[in-house]
């Protein structure tokens, strides 16, 4: 068994399928005689040492009859599946085989047929082909075909448009040859998976038909027939029905699980990275109106965010004062978005947030917000997310989504809350707010949604707005408007702003202070006014140098930072930036530089501060 199939699912499937196939081959050879031995002295006996599952109406051993019936049950299921697959392939590939016009007709027929359940189709075909084994194989085969035809049609259409098929066609390769050599080979995997699952379905369907008396006829017997006979004597002898029933279920599972295991192998994913990728979503924090610590809205000391073994945010400290705008810049993966989410208490399991201090408006948030703190966060901590297209609930009207926190936290009635939502939409300069409030998110443009998102943060009395790449998903002209709006709100109401961005020039324009993050740590904390000359960390300087401006010589290639960002799992010892740094020496690779504060209050973490220019 291939290594990748060694999952509990794969092992179970393989064991079951091997057992079923082995019995199919061997059971009639080994126990055919015992299964047919009539013993009229022991009719309808319960289980005993001689007959583990008892005997039937002619004194025949039920256990061995079930084992021997494996062959007929499985072979008939495989035959009808094979028939269905072949018919399905022909119908599904019809547009390629007989031309587009006739093919469309076939496809239309398949689409109608596929709407009817397989059992209904099988019953109808059973009427046409007649009661009995042969009729049932044909009936189930024809019933399987439409679903398979549709699958084939979809897959073929997806492959047929690719370049290599077009190339083969232009090269004059015949239709059938193109289909077999170039198309079918490329859609083989999903077809095999579905055929395996369909075999399980055929097995169950056959059991159903035989149980109803429409399938296998005496003296032949398959599981369905044994089951039907057993159900008649359920009161006196339940095992006669339960044993063949269990056989049907197990064999059906064997095919279904095998199909599932192979399907999972084809479309595998890595759970570790799924967890890490999910994490970098951020929400902005809202500033508090009640500030127990003088002017400080947000105080963070030694903030760490971890996902299992990985720690993408490694000890972050900063404070934001009332009305202050602080920017956080860094490449993707630097932990800036996670920082925003952590501050906003929006990191979810398996993520973990730890900090020596995490205070918003003087409230300690480290142990998860209490009820009162939830209200505080809900009214005075506003968040603006990166992608306005996906950040609104598609099933609710915009006005209702804005009104919701006011109803929940401020005790407003629905009508009042809606009126305030309209007012706030006007405050963020959305045209025709009354009409817009009644619309769904999909009726808004990206810029309008981002305004509405900011408006949602203004429903309460925000003390802090955390904006995580609020303009990245927007057009350049709209970007300026949204940034201007944030700036106006900050200036007008002394609302603090934490702006996350990968764009150091945007942050430099809007914010008073810039935190530069690299590999989960702050490497520099500098006044925006001092940029670009005041940047002292090599990474900050590299970021600034990478920004093209009007004076950039366009004949030269754009400046880039050599190397690539550090993955959270591979943070080196010493300075994390050292591998990409022109100034790095052996000391940098050994010891991580501390974040030192200078006389002006600026902070930088570099062993070579004085040398960088």
């Amino acid at each position, binding site marked *: 068994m291939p290594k990748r199939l060694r999952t509990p699912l794969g092992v179970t499937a393989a064991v079951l399928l091997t057992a079923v196939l082995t019995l199919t081959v061997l059971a009639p050879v080994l126990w055919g005689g015992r299964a047919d031995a009539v013993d009229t002295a022991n009719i309808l006996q319960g289980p005993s040492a001689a007959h583990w599952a008892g005997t039937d109406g002619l004194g025949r051993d039920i256990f061995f009859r079930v084992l021997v019936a494996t062959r007929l049950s499985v072979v008939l299921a495989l035959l009808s599946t094979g028939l269905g697959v072949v018919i399905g392939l022909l119908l599904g590939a019809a547009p390629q085989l007989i031309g587009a016009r006739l093919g469309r007709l076939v496809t239309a*027929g398949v689409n*109608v*047929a596929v*709407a*009817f*359940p*397989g*059992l*209904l189709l099988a*019953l*109808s075909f059973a*009427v*046409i082909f*007649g*009661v009995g084994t042969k009729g049932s194989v044909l009936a189930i085969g024809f019933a399987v075909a439409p679903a398979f035809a549709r699958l084939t049609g979809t897959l073929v259409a997806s492959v047929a448009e690719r370049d290599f098929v077009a190339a083969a066609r232009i090269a004059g390769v015949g239709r059938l040859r193109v289909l077999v050599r170039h198309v079918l080979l490329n859609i083989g995997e999903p077809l095999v998976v579905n055929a395996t699952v369909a075999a*399980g379905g055929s097995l169950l369907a056959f*059991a*159903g038909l035989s*149980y*109803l*008396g*429409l399938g296998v006829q005496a003296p032949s017997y398959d599981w369905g027939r044994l*089951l039907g006979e057993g*159900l008649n004597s*359920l*009161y006196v002898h*339940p095992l006669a029905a*339960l044993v063949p*029933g269990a056989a049907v*279920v197990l064999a*059906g*599972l064997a095919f*279904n699980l095998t199909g599932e295991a192979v399907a999972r192998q084809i479309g595998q994913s890595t*759970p570790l990275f799924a*967890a890490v990728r*999910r994490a970098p979503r951020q929400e*902005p924090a809202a500033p508090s109106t009640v500030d127990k610590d003088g002017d400080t809205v947000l105080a963070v000391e030694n903030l760490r965010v971890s996902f299992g073994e990985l720690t993408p945010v490694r000890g972050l400290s900063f404070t934001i004062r009332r009305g202050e705008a602080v920017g956080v810049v860094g490449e993707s993966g630097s932990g800036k978005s996670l920082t925003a989410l952590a501050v906003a208490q*929006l990191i979810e*399991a*398996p993520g973990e947030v730890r900090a020596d201090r995490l205070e918003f408006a003087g409230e300690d948030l480290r142990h998860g*917000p209490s009820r009162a703190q*939830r*209200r505080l*966060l*809900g009214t005075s901590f506003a*968040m603006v*997310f990166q*992608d306005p297209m*996906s*950040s609104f*609930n*598609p*099933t*609710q009207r915009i006005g209702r989504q804005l009104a*919701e*926190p006011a109803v*929940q*936290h401020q005790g407003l009635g629905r009508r009042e809350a809606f009126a305030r939502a309209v007012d706030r939409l006007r405050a963020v300069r959305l045209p025709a707010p009354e009409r817009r409030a009644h619309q*769904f998110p999909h009726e808004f443009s990206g810029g309008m949604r981002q305004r509405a998102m900011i408006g*949602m943060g203004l429903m309460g009395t925000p003390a802090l707005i955390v904006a995580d790449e609020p303009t990245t998903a927007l057009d350049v002209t709209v970007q300026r408007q949204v940034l201007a709006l944030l700036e106006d709100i900050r200036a007008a109401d002394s609302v603090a702003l934490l702006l996350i961005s990968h764009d150091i020039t945007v942050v430099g324009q809007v914010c008073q202070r810039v935190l530069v993050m690299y590999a989960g740590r702050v490497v520099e904390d500098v006044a925006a006014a001092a940029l670009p000359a005041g940047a002292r960390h090599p990474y900050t300087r590299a970021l600034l140098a990478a920004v093209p401006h009007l004076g950039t010589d366009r004949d030269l290639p754009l400046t880039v930072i050599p190397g690539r960002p550090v993955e959270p799992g591979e943070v080196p010892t010493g300075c994390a930036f050292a591998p990409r740094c022109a100034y790095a020496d052996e000391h940098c690779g050994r010891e991580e530089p501390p974040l030192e504060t200078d006389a002006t209050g600026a902070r930088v973490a570099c062993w070579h501060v004085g040398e960088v220019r």
Partner: protein
Amino acid sequence: MRAMTEKLTDNAWVRFAARRSRRLLLSVWVLLTAAFGMIHLIPGDPVRAALGVAAPPELVAARREQLGLDDPLWRQYLDYLGDLSAGRFGTSTVSGLPVSQVIAERYPATLELAGYAFLVAVALSVPVGLTMAVLTRGGRRRRLELGFTSTSVFLGAVPEFLIGAGLVYLFGVQLGLVPIAGRAGPDSYVLPVLALALGPAAVLARIMRVETLAVLDADYIRTARAKRLPDRRLYLRHALPNSVTATVTIAGLLLGGLVAATVLVENVFAWPGLGSTIVQSILAKDYPVVQGIVLIYGLGVLLVNLLVDVGLALLDPRSTIRES
């Protein structure tokens, strides 16, 4: 006038209705033709087959005459369509009763069975799937997840008539709690409805869980979290409406299969509906009855599909279904 027509075709609902009716008409036509063709595709002489080899030739000839089998095919086809539009489904060759009467007597039992089973399946799967998603989110409670997944895979893989047999054994034979056959009194509904509902419920619960997990990871749920809503509100108001749409879609697809599965379940529980009748009629070669019941089942499935599509179009404010 022209402006009005343009305005009408501009409306997404009008276009949806037009497209959907076209498809329905085509499907009904295919179904009617297939039901008509079914009888004619039976190899040999259906009258001879029904009456047996020993039947006197005069009787066979008279019956063929009576059924119009000697007319040209196109004539029979038109007669068939004409009869159907007048509500005439033919006459049972076994009982001599009009097929329409047989259907009228039997269909309410099947409709009830399928309807209740559908409601039970949805009522079980939506809360179970939602709860499991919330509990097992982010790789928590691995054992619970494994237990849930294996149980639901197993239940979904066991055919309805076997679940029925198991239920009969457990509740009827062992515990003797409820009746195991026939349709008399509310408690006789318990086992047949459960037998039909458990499989679809298991499949739906699994889909509901996966859908809810995906929705809980969506940006707008993060927005809702940022509003610091109580968990209940978060899950019921923000997650549920978004995850239930996909589940209802699948439920609708399963509903067609559920209607068909009544055939097997009715036979397990001796339920006096269309399903047990069609099997008896196939075995008795009573083709007019078979033809009539196949038609009714098929129309039922088409109706269900139509209702599901309309329901989804109503549920979906982005009108993707109407537009697609």
